[in-house]
């Protein structure tokens, strides 16, 4: 027997080592949460590897910044001129968009919607990858010391990147959206069809569970739906590149991620998301819709001679300005969803006289004052609504 064991000693050790690993693998697969022993190995490996990667990244950034900021300044003057022009164009566009956004806020408030705001982010540097084709994840240089926790959303200015999978003391592992084990609740921007965004084996991103009864065109943007409770609603995920009939009644939609997942450098980790109703400023007495109409229509004969103070082509009312909320020390504001708040001191002018609650037609303005209805909920814009039953949407 001893001779037998001695003769097959190497094979016996091989079988024992393989058996131990298969057993460990089976235990890990069966358990839903990660146990302490496997976590320890990951912590040790990460602690051994990341300092080297962190040092290399810092060295690279130092050399790059030196080259870009001090040595290679060719074409900077021309670039500066182009950027100034771009800023002017963007300012004009911002004015238009902020009016639209303010209107959307008012409507959301009317309907009792709650919005999700990214209120705090932490900027992080990508320092490494998993180094495997089968595992699409990256390591960032921020960890639990910086307030990171598992399942936090990771984004860039371009779009969604992934979510925090494992958190170590000074680094974290981020699961990219093109990994086959990831899933993001997504919605198509125009058709408003919802689906689940998944990665494929070869690193592509597809939108699944979209019914084939509505047409989806390539080029349409894909946004986060907020249904996964990880990614705030409305973040850009990517663009539809190919639509094909899939299995059963679902479409197979191929999506090109908005963020370049193969060349990530800096990312933002969303550490805090607030959910609240849109803020509206409405100081002064409430206005009725008819009053607003009466002010805006110049043909009303019985209005007082109080000229509109707004220039031609500009709608009276609060002018919102993009305002980024306060951030904790070390955190950075997210460029993804700046909060729009009305500028202070810009409120609707007070009504000059009572008017009818409901005009007969949208184009007609009330001519004679009527008795105002009993007190009704003021929704901030000045519109007074009919009381509704609990749970019933406002009319």
């Amino acid at each position, binding site marked *: 027997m001893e001779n037998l064991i001695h003769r097959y*000693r*190497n094979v016996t*050790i*091989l079988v024992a*080592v*393989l058996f131990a*690993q*298969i057993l*460990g*693998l*089976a235990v*890990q*697969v069966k358990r839903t949460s990660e146990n302490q022993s*496997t976590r320890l*190995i*990951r912590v*040790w*490996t*990460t602690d*051994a*590897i990341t300092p*080297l*990667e962190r040092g*290399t990244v810092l060295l690279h950034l130092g050399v790059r910044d030196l080259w870009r900021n001090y040595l290679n300044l060719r074409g900077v003057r021309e670039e500066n001129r182009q950027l100034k022009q771009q800023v002017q164009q963007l300012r004009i566009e911002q004015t238009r968009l902020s009016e639209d956004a303010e209107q959307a806020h008012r409507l959301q408030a009317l309907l009792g919607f709650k919005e999700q705001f990214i209120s705090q982010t932490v900027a992080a540097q*990508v*320092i*490494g*990858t*998993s*180094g*495997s*084709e*089968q*595992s699409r*994840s*990256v*390591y960032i240089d921020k960890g639990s010391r910086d307030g990171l926790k598992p399942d936090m959303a990771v984004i860039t200015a371009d779009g969604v990147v992934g979510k925090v*999978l494992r958190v170590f003391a000074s680094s974290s*592992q981020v*699961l990219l959206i093109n*990994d*086959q*084990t990831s899933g993001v609740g997504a919605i198509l921007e125009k058709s408003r069809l919802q689906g689940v965004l998944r990665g494929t*084996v*070869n690193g592509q991103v597809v939108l699944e569970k979209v019914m084939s009864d509505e047409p989806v065109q390539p080029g349409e943007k894909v946004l986060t739906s907020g249904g996964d409770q990880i990614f705030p609603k409305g973040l850009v995920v990517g663009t539809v590149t190919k639509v094909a009939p899939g299995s059963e009644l679902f479409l197979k939609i191929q999506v090109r991620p908005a963020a370049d997942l*193969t*060349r*990530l450098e800096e990312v933002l980790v969303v550490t805090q998301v607030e959910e609240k109703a849109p803020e509206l400023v409405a100081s002064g007495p409430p206005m009725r819709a008819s009053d607003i109409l009466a002010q805006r229509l110049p043909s009303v004969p019985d209005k007082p001679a109080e000229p509109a103070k707004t220039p031609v082509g500009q709608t009276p009312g609060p002018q919102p300005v993009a305002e980024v909320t306060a951030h904790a020390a070390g955190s950075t504001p997210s460029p993804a969803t700046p909060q729009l708040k009305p500028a202070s001191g810009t409120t609707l002018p007070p009504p000059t006289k009572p008017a009818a609650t409901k005009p007969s037609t949208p184009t007609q303005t009330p001519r004679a004052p009527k008795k105002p209805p009993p007190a009704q909920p003021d929704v901030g814009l000045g519109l007074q609504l009919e009381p509704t039953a609990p749970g019933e949407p406002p009319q």
Partner: protein
Amino acid sequence: MPITYTSNEQIEVYRFSAPAAIAIPLFALAVQAFVPRWLPFFNIFDLPLLIVIFFALARRSQVAGLLTGAVIGLLQDSLTIHPLGLYGISKTVVGYGASSLGVKLDVENAGSRFLVTLFFYVVHEFVYFLIARGLVRLTVQWSWWHELGSALANAIVAVALFAFLDRFKQRA
């Protein structure tokens, strides 16, 4: 000079200093994790696997080979999102096989190193594929063209890498 004899052929057995035995695998893991950030195509290379093959061929001990493969494989697993053991089992098999082959063949020249790496890369991928599909139920695709191309690329790198790593070998 300690020499082991197998099939009437003189085969030298090498050992490595402790710093080299620890630093080389860690450095390979770091490079494997770091470089794809800049060069995504680098993922087709498997530097930890090449290190396992190199150590196994040089030491020519089956137990040392399989243990080296198991440790490096588990460390590589810990950098991925998957359960520990996928790379561990694959590299254990490769470490055992490479050291077994090293006892019987002359693997000191570039040609044999190229062929051995080519062969064991495919073995490694095949074992990984079996475990990923059979035990962990991962969706893994097998493409002969991709595997053979990767094996070829790894074998070419292995020839240069092994020549460099020969400097760290010490005669046992």
